[in-house]
């Protein structure tokens, strides 16, 4: 049950306290890299990446490590509040492994397919949503912004459907309330009701 967790914090603190560019800093940095490598906590080499390529990835990663652990020269500085040192460097190693895989893939040369025109007929879902809006109209109209009975769930949902698709800026102008107020009301009152309708209609 006991787990003794190795903490790199003291050595990181020691390293970063050394003056930038000093030999002490280099020495501590090397020690840290050595300990991390020996800790078994570094991201494993995927079996389909050759050892030499993986070593290249590690090499790049240690450069990133040395530049950003204390000073943040090429990326945001390491933040002990967000993650442990192994998690931080592993994130970089994993991203470079991702880049490596992506480079190996041939760029597809398949023909560019333009977006086909959208259907002229609205699909059934839209019909169902519109029918639900009409059926529950009175109920949806009762849920409105305080002192604005015209700004209600029915109106907002209808206006935001793709068939109307009125922008928030336009809606705010039309209804003479701040856009943020409309959006807040939409998120709080309309989206949950739309979701509920989706469930009732058997789509969710």
């Amino acid at each position: 049950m006991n787990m003794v967790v190795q903490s790199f914090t003291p050595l990181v603190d020691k390293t970063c306290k050394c003056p930038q560019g000093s030999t002490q800093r280099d020495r501590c940095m090397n020690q840290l890299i050595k300990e991390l490598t020996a800790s078994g906590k570094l991201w494993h080499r995927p079996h389909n990446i050759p050892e030499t390529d993986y070593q290249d990835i590690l090499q790049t990663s240690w450069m990133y490590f040395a530049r950003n652990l204390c000073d943040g020269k090429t990326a945001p500085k390491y933040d002990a509040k967000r993650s442990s040192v192994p998690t931080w460097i592993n994130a970089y190693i994993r991203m470079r492994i991702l880049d490596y895989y992506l480079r190996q893939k041939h760029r597809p040369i398949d023909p560019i397919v333009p977006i086909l025109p959208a259907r002229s007929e609205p699909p059934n879902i839209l019909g169902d949503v519109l029918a639900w809006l009409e059926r529950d109209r009175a109920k949806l109209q009762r849920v409105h912004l305080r002192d604005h009975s015209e700004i209600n769930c029915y109106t907002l949902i209808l206006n935001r459907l793709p068939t109307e698709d009125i922008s928030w800026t336009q809606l705010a102008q039309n209804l003479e309330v701040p856009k943020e107020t409309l959006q807040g009301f939409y998120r709080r009152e309309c989206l949950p009701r739309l979701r509920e309708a989706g469930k009732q209609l058997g789509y969710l």
Partner: protein
Amino acid sequence: MTIPICSPKTVVPIHHSDRQTAENFAKQQPTHKQADKVYRNTLAVMITKHCLDILEIPSDLSECDSWNPFSRLVSDVADLHIIDLGRLECRPVRPGEEYCYVPTDVWEDRIGYVVVQIDSSCTEATLRGFSVSVNSEKLALSQLQPLEQLLIHLTPIKLMKTWVNNILDRLSNTWKEIGTLSGLIYEPVFTFPALQHIAFDTPERTEQIVEQLYASQWSGNLKSNKPSSFRGSVGSPNGKSQFGNPKVKDAFPPDFPAALVNLIQTTTNEEIRWKAAEALWTINPDHPATGVRRVLDLGLLIAEQHMALMVGVLPLQDQRVSILARLYPLGQQTRLLPGLKLVVLGADGSSGEVAARKSGDNYIQLKFTGKLGERFSINVCLNGDNFTEYFMI
């Protein structure tokens, strides 16, 4: 100062089959504008998914709004469900754009936002970066964090929702059910001083305890936490039950579990809430309203002292939860070291609550409430040693 980000670009080829899927979804839309939106959203989701597959981060499309024809039609969504963690929003941008549009539809219930730049021929995409949260429709690309931060962000989150639904973390099995640490723990993990020596042995006894919690609720504070006073204060000095107070009596549901559940759900006093949960747990450990408790053995991480961190979650109404974080000595230790701190921080790492070990305490704890989707971290520290665990409700 803005730090120049020099991470290599992550360029992703787009498969023909992905374009075909996006096209199929687009064809279902009633307008050209919506079709274009759905096409690009779908590509952004699939590109992100391919990358996460390579990164060995399991994701699932089947539960996503972006994969549901209804949700695609009625809202602007590009979500990808990261297994055990939650929904990551994958927003598309065009080359040359400086801002990414993030519709209000997706401002909540997201664990983060990835921005995917899709080239004009839709054959290649570049992952531009990541943001933990958004608070406006325009997300400046210059403010994005490098993708390494996404991996850091996804690595440690523990999702309270999965705990409450009794799903064990796939990514980590280190958080245990309380029972697994019995024997190592000096005192029962989930026991409050006020209830430690109280046996819910008779209906009368239970009634008295429940009654006192209700009385405390009405008087606005709890009586002393000492067990003796808790026991002693049941009923008024003249022997008349506190049910004599009509307010208390009216508020009291007919049976004890219902009374306790009511209290757990409605009180605004966290102390009373957790005491009611403890009382309910003692009467009926399987009652769903008692919430969940998980415990993590911290080993000798902090100052070589064997400790355990317990986190309890009580589901409340309106997607809110009440959370209790408590630090205990484990094994041979009976007291926590002086100076030990337990800190709860918000998503941005700021404005936290702190509890410090006071002399005489054998545990320290914090109680707070939050709502679905909120993030926080629990940090345990003493001198230079510290341990942090990240959570999302």
